[in-house]
Structures are given as C-alpha cells and as structure tokens.
C-alpha cells in the first residue's frame, strides 16, 4: 500500500517536470538574434514597413484570436472590433494622460479591450457556436459604429482618423521604421512567450478541456463560464495591443474603417491556414497571408509584363484564398504548421522511413 502511494506520489512529482522541461533550442536563440539584430541592420525601409511590421502585428492578432477560437473553442468573427478598441484606447490614453509612457498606454489600451471583450463574452455562458458568432458580430459592428460616430474618440479630427502620437521610449524616438519594427517585435516576443506559458499552464489546459467538451470540463470541476470569460478577456487583450500596433506602428493613421469585418475574416483565415490551437501556426499563417499578395503581385508582373489589372489580381487572390481554405479544411485541418512539422519529420528520417 505504502509503496503504491509512494510510487504514485513520485510519478505525480515527475509530471510537472516533464511539462516544464523543454528543450531550449539553439534555433530559437538564433531566430531572436536575427530578428533583433540582423534584420534591423540589413533590412531596408520597404522590408521593415511593408512586410515585417504587418506580418508581426497580424501574427499577434492571430495569436489573440487563436487563444479564444483555437484553444477555447469559441468562434469569433469580431476580432477587428477589439483591435479597434485597443487602438483607440491607446490613442486616448497617450492623448489625455500627460506623461504616460508608451508601454503603459499600450497595456492600458489592451486592458480596456480586455474588459470590453469580457463584456461581450458574457453571453458565451449560455450560447455557443453560430449563436455566439452573432454576439461577436454585434461587437464588431457596434464598436465600428461607436468609433466612427463619436468624435471624442478621435479627438474631433475633421478626417475622423487617429494618427500615431509620440512614439518614444525613455526619450528615444521610435518613429523611424527600425524603431517601430523593434517596438512591434518586442511586444510580439514578450506576448508570445506569455502565451506559450499560458496555454501550458492550468489555465490553458482548462481552456482546451472546455474546447474539447464543455460538459465534461464542467463535470471535472472546471468553472466553465469563468474560463470562457477569461479567454475572451485575454484574447481581447492581445487583439487590443495588436490593434494599437497596427494603427501606430504599421498604418500611422487609422480610422474605424481600418478595423472592419474584412480584417476580422483575415485574422480568422490566419488561424485556419496557420493552424488552430497552435502558437507557431499564427506566425506561419500570418506570413502566408501577408506574403501571398506580394508574391502574386510579382508573379503577375513577371508573367504578364506589367499590363495586368490590379482589380483582377485581387479577384485572383480571393479565389486562391478561398480555395486554400477549403483545401486546408479538407486535407489538413491542423493547418500549415502541421505540414511544416510533417516535412521536418520526413527530413529527419530521410532517406528511409520508419
């Protein structure tokens, strides 16, 4: 009896260790080194402005939505709405609170978005699936309307837009492309690290239990409603910060229209194509979504020698995206990240398979 108990305790003592024990791969360190040092040195303004910054921000937004949809199983089509909240709230804080440092304003914007997200997440206690989608659609349209309608939010600007306020940290200006890139990168790295640990922790495992079967989760004692609301709040926090970065680090000038329903769909596509319930998937998906149009553009120029209609290219892009989404749902529901993983496994055992 005692030995059994002892063995049990021993194995339970081991369990958390195996969860925490991770390889700290050289690859990650190298990747961070390249991202923080090499890219700002080597990349020109076009690369930083038009490719890297939007890629990073979209990854962050995908991460936020993935926490809610991929990990907790609550479908949302209002992601852009919460991005708008983050952007406008950060703007408001920087404008109206004298001397507030940029990181604090970002966090404040995120927290306000989180609060709103939780508010719109309350119905998730009673409804799910398509019905919940209506709540998130309501959030999307309502938020868009509020930010377009009430001039207080955009400081009575006649254009109805908000533009990048003082982007500075400890007296250093971050207004240059490199500065904005580093700001975005720092936010993304920090929040990704938090997210990795969050989904590994009790919270994350509760979320996944709810996603897989909420009744079972309730039976084993997880407070389902509370964790759903928490998922809405955390997801909106991420989306809020992504929204603020989208507005100030990427666009420079934003309005309520920058966060319309199409942006929400774009972020939903990132997580479908990249991989639901995967952290790395957001980056793969965002890279795909932001590089695809550029690639198509160049391919079009190259194939048709410059006389290709931009509208037609956009239509082609739409058809391609739609097809890809369906193909992924049919062939690989776990997304690009799974394909990459399969490829890696294949290479590792090459040329002989098990």
């Amino acid at each position, binding site marked *: 009896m005692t030995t059994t108990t002892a063995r049990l305790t021993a194995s339970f003592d081991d369990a958390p260790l195996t969860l925490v024990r991770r390889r700290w791969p050289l690859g990650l360190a190298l990747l961070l080194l390249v991202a923080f040092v090499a890219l700002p040195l080597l990349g020109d303004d076009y690369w930083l402005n038009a490719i890297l910054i939007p890629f990073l921000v979209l990854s962050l937004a995908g991460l936020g939505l993935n926490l809610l949809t991929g990990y907790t199983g609550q479908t949302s089509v209002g992601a852009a709405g919460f991005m708008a909240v983050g952007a406008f709230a950060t703007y408001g804080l920087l404008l109206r609170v004298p001397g507030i440092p940029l990181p604090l304003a970002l966090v404040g914007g995120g927290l306000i978005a989180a609060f709103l997200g939780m508010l719109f997440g309350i119905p998730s206690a009673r409804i799910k699936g398509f019905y919940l989608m*209506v709540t998130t659609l*309501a959030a999307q349209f*309502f938020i868009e309307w509020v930010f377009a309608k009430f001039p207080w939010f955009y400081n009575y600007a006649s254009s109805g837009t908000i533009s990048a306020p003082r982007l500075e940290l400890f007296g250093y200006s971050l207004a240059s492309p490199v500065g904005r890139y580093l700001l975005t990168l720092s936010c993304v790295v920090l929040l990704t690290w938090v997210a990795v640990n969050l989904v590994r922790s009790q919270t994350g495992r509760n979320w996944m239990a709810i996603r897989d079967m909420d009744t079972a989760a309730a039976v084993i004692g997880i407070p389902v409603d509370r964790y759903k609301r928490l998922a809405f709040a955390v997801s909106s926090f991420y989306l809020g910060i992504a929204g603020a970065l989208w507005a100030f680090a990427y666009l420079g000038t934003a309005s309520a229209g920058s966060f319309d*329903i199409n942006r929400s769909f774009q972020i939903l596509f990132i997580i479908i194509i990249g991989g639901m319930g995967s952290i790395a998937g957001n980056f793969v998906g965002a890279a795909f979504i932001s590089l695809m149009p550029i690639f198509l553009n160049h391919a079009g120029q190259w194939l048709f020698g410059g006389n290709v209609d931009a509208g037609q290219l956009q*239509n082609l892009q739409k058809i391609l995206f*739609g097809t890809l*989404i369906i193909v992924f*749902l049919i062939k690989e529901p776990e997304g690009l990240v799974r394909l990459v993983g399969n490829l890696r496994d294949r290479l590792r055992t090459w040329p002989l398979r098990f």
Partner: protein
Amino acid sequence: MNFFLETLIGGLLAGTMYSLVAIGFVLIYKASGVFNFAQGAMLLFSALTFVSLHEQGVPFALALLLTLLVMIIGALLIERLVLRPLVNRSQITLFMATLGLSFIIEGLAQGLMGAQVRALDLGIEDIPLFVGEVMISQFDLIAAAVAAVLVALLALLFNRTRIGIALRAVADDTRAALSIGINLNRIWQIVWAVAGMVGLVAGLLWGARQGVQFSLSLVVLKALPVLIIGGFTSIGGAIVGGLIVGAAENLAEAYIGPLIGGGITPWFAYFLALVFLYIRPAGLFGDRAIERV
C-alpha cells in the same frame, strides 16, 4: 401616427427582402446542417450573371433560364468538391468552408463580370402608392408579393412532391433517411440548387433596388440575426424573423437613432437578436435543440 405607420410598413416590406435571403439559409441548414455563409456570394453571382446576360441582349426569360442553369451547375460542383469531402465534420468547420466558398464565388463573379455597379431594371416602376395618407413603395409591395409566391412554391415543393418528402426526411433524421435509401448527395445537390434559385430571386430584387454590386454579398450578415430570431430550421420563422428585423430596424432608426447619433442600422439587428437569444435561444419557431453529451 402616419409617420409611425409609414416607417412600420416600409420596414416590414424591407423585411421581406431579409426573409428571402434567410430562406436560402434555412433550406441548406435544414438539409445538411451547414450554415452557408456563401449565400450572399451566391446572391451576388446570380444577379451579376443575369445582368451580364441581359446586357448582352439575351431576352429576359432566356437570361433567367440560363442563370438558373448556371446556379444548378454551381450547386452540383459545390456538393461534389466541398461538401462531400467534408462530410461528418463539425459545423464550424463546414461554416468556415463556406466562408472560403464565398471568397471563391465573389472572386469569380467580379473577375468574370466586372466590379462596377450595374443597373438592373426589372420593369417595375417605383411609383409611391398612397393608402389613405400613408405612402407605400410600390416596388417593395411587388417584391413582397414575389416573396410570397416563392414561399408558396417552396411549400408546395416540400409538401406535395417526392423530392420534398425526401428533403424533409433528411432534415428530420439524416441517419434514418439514409437507411431507407434516400440518396443524401442527391438531396444536397437539390437543396443547394434550390437555395441558388432563391438566391437568384433575392439577388434580382435586391439588385433592382440598390444596383448589382459587391455590397449585395453583405446582406448575408443581416440574415444571421434574422435566423436567430426566427430559428435556424423554420422557413416560417425566417419570414417572421425577417419582418421583425426589418420593422424594428426602421423604427429604431427613426425613433432611437436621433437620440444617440443615428446610423444605428448596421448593428441594431444584432442587439435585437441578442435580446431574443436571452429569452428564446431556439428562436421563435426553431427546434428546441437537445444537447447530447
């Protein structure tokens, strides 16, 4: 009082248009459990096809027939390439597939037939009609009549034909329907084709009202609250839900709108749907779903 009546009737008539869109959803949802986000794109595609044919000098009836043919071929393709490989997958997966589908259809429609706004003249003159002192749009009245005829035809199809009975069997219990030899794939093809036809009618009426253009595909988003209010599985519910949403939207814009800045139509329907969700989660006429573990 007159103003109230005018707003109410205008809203109700606009609501019939919402109903038309929602009916297409209900048909597909009942038969295959798919929330078809591509319904709006189908609407756009059919209206664009019709207008393009009509502009080429094809007579009205022939253009209508050809468009119907296109929609049927489309339904066959969708069933074959999208639905069949995804059979037995979760509803959200299927919904996302139709989201992809809507992108494909929109891209095709605009790629093949152009993105500019096309005028569509159905030969209905929009002369306002006066009943007492209340002004009613004649066009809306005719649109409502068309909707009524369509619903009657659908009711006939569902209740009086062999196909209709098979459709109802599939909607009622898919497994039982399969076991007595109903060909599920064929049923899906038929349902998507019928939904395409409903989309065509809705597309023509909406198109005649506001021009055939990309924004047509966005009416799909208005159908969601209509379905929540009416229930996902009831055609009657779709009609009543559409009327409620249309009327409430118009009244709210007229009476609540001025108080809080106006332009509230984009989101009012959703809040109405939320209120309904709290009171009657299954909708007014929907099946009360039983949650199985």
